[in-house]
């Protein structure tokens, strides 16, 4: 029987799943992913986690609870940094420790540190460490990693073309053509685990798409463009997401086909508090593009979100009809 590796469908799963899944499968392990976020998972997470943690971290706890009895290993890497000179966030860095302290009866955790802050070369080393839990053959791990990386790059290229994860089933059909489209372009910035978890964001993406809106996320902006804008900032942003968010906001402001910007934040996220505020200032100072925050928390009143989205898109449509005489501030 093959080894079962459990991956919580939460946090960096949404950014990395092609890489992680392919890697473990190539090594002959069976990958078990927790089911989509549900009320039970959210409630479990909220109950077991410290009150002050942000929503995504609470959700992660919930996903771990739903997985822990079904797998041999839990894959919770210590994600200190996934890019040179940048961190992710203290909570993500301390995640394995938080999980160990809060949840009892865990299987063995694969908590290899992924730290690419200083030099880019430790990437393969981390992969070898992670792989050694399920397979002893170093060459096979290396091969699996290269294959997984290919898959991952393919996926990233898809995302840049307009593919949104979660559309998996009808993958090719779902790729929206950004250029020359009659649809209204709205940019959405937010952590991938907020944008792609349709339970948490209450189907934000499909609601907007259903309203005839073409969604452009910051993940669809290429790394080069983001970096060229992020380099102009006064001080280097030392959070991976922060750099991407601020770089892409500056890019969106200069592009003339973006009619509105939505910043999705999770309640209690420290980085969103700062980056969201800076992003808003960039948009307000340099453009008249309407800008809106949507902050996600454990409450699930959907009507309020619907009203705000409707008002936002209506306002944008009226603006384009009536020569921008509508306030951008709602």
């Amino acid at each position: 029987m093959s080894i079962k590796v459990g991956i919580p469908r939460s946090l960096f799963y949404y950014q990395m799943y092609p890489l992680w899944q392919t890697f473990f499968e190539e090594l002959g392990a069976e990958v078990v992913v927790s089911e989509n976020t549900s009320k039970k998972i959210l409630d479990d997470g909220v109950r077991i986690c410290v009150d002050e943690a942000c929503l995504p971290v609470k959700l992660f706890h919930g996903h771990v609870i739903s997985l822990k009895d079904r797998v041999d290993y839990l894959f919770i890497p210590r994600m200190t940094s996934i890019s040179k000179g940048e961190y992710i966030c203290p909570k993500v860095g301390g995640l394995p420790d938080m999980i160990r302290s809060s949840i009892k009866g865990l299987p063995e955790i694969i908590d290899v540190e992924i730290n690419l802050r200083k030099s880019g070369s430790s990437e393969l080393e981390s992969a070898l460490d992670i792989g050694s839990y399920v397979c002893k053959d170093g060459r096979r791990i290396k091969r699996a990693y290269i294959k997984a990386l290919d898959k991952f790059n393919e996926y990233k290229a898809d995302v840049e073309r307009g593919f949104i994860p979660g559309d998996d089933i009808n993958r090719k059909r779902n790729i929206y053509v950004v250029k020359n489209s009659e649809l209204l372009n709205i940019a959405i910035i937010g952590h991938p685990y907020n944008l792609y978890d349709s339970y948490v964001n209450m189907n934000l993406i499909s609601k907007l798409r259903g309203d005839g809106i073409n969604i452009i996320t910051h993940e669809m902006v290429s790394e080069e463009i983001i970096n060229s804008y992020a380099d102009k900032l006064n001080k280097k942003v030392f959070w991976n997401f922060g750099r991407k968010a601020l770089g892409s906001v500056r890019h969106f402001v200069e592009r003339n086909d973006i009619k509105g910007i939505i910043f999705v934040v999770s309640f209690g996220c420290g980085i969103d508090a700062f980056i969201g505020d800076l992003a808003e200032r960039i948009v307000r100072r340099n453009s008249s593009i309407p800008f809106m925050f949507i902050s996600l928390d454990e409450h699930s009143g959907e009507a309020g979100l619907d009203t705000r989205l409707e008002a936002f898109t209506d306002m944008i449509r009226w603006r384009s009809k009536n020569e921008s005489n509508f306030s951008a501030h709602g």
Partner: protein
Amino acid sequence: MKVTFPHMGNTYIPVKALLDELGIEYVIPPFNNKKALELGTKYAPEMACLPLKINLGNFIQAHELGADLILISGGCGPCRFGYYGEMHREILKDLGFNMEVFTLDISKKDISGFLRNIKRITGEFKPYKILKAIKKTAEVSKQVDELERLSFKIRPREIVKGSADRIYKSFQNSVLNKKGAKEIKELIDFTRKNLLDIETDKSLDPIKIGIVGEIYTTNDPFTNFRIESRLGNEGAEVMRPVTVSGWIIDHMIKKALGLKGDESYKEAAKPYLGAMIGGHTQETIGNTVLLAKDGYDGIIQILPLGCMPEIVSESILPSIERDLNIPVLTLIIDEMTGEAGYLTRIEAFVDLLKRRKEEGLIAGKRMLSWN
């Protein structure tokens, strides 16, 4: 050009010494107060951490006194403190205050720019003078912390309650009128003598409480409602391992020289926290373990609401509590914290620790369960 800087507990004393020694014109913002917090809360993002809000209030109040250049230290993450400078600059810019923000972090990319800025503030660039001033500043900050530790020891033991508080408070006020490291050191010596003259009960064996957590809220008496003096007056001896001088000496001076400070806490934290994740998490976890093993009766963790690193500590501390059988109280502070509820919790905690200690003495081991 008038320089100002943010308040954090006693930090203004060493910084004042430094600026005096360098002959820089400066304004010390009014001590942390309700108005500063209100101003900061009004203009800062809602979910920003408390120190950012208070500091913003400090700057606005200093601006009213004529300051136009803000001096703060920086960092490179992942704690949000590293980006304070940028936040403050952007917020003040949108508010229309004409204030420049100068972040004291030395990035490899722009070391010449850093030196240029130093030269602009100091008017001239004399490395020897600057090094001498830094040395004196380090001495002052060390003595200030020693003085504070002395007051921690005297408060629970003094016969007339409030004597140490009175002397210490008067020191904090009158230091503002002193100029230069020499005068400040004289005042510290004078205060130390006064503190030692307080009549104390030498036979007393007080309960001992360690304070851990985020550096700003643990060090700043306005934000933590003077917790150290309150605990002291309730009859508890306090110990706070993370201090301003420790931070200046270990993190700024020793790091710049490539030296290593005392890192025993890192070893102690290992079983619970596998790596450095930013902020003072390692210190919090490590020091809790060290203090528990050192026979302390209880630990109080203090953090501002939403503090990313300390949330990790908060979720790990219950394991230490279980393993080492030491009560831990977590206090979370934000602009809405009400003093009465906060004090009730502290009092209850102190009572619990006292009972625990008494019963422990009778039964030979600690009996009263904390959970």
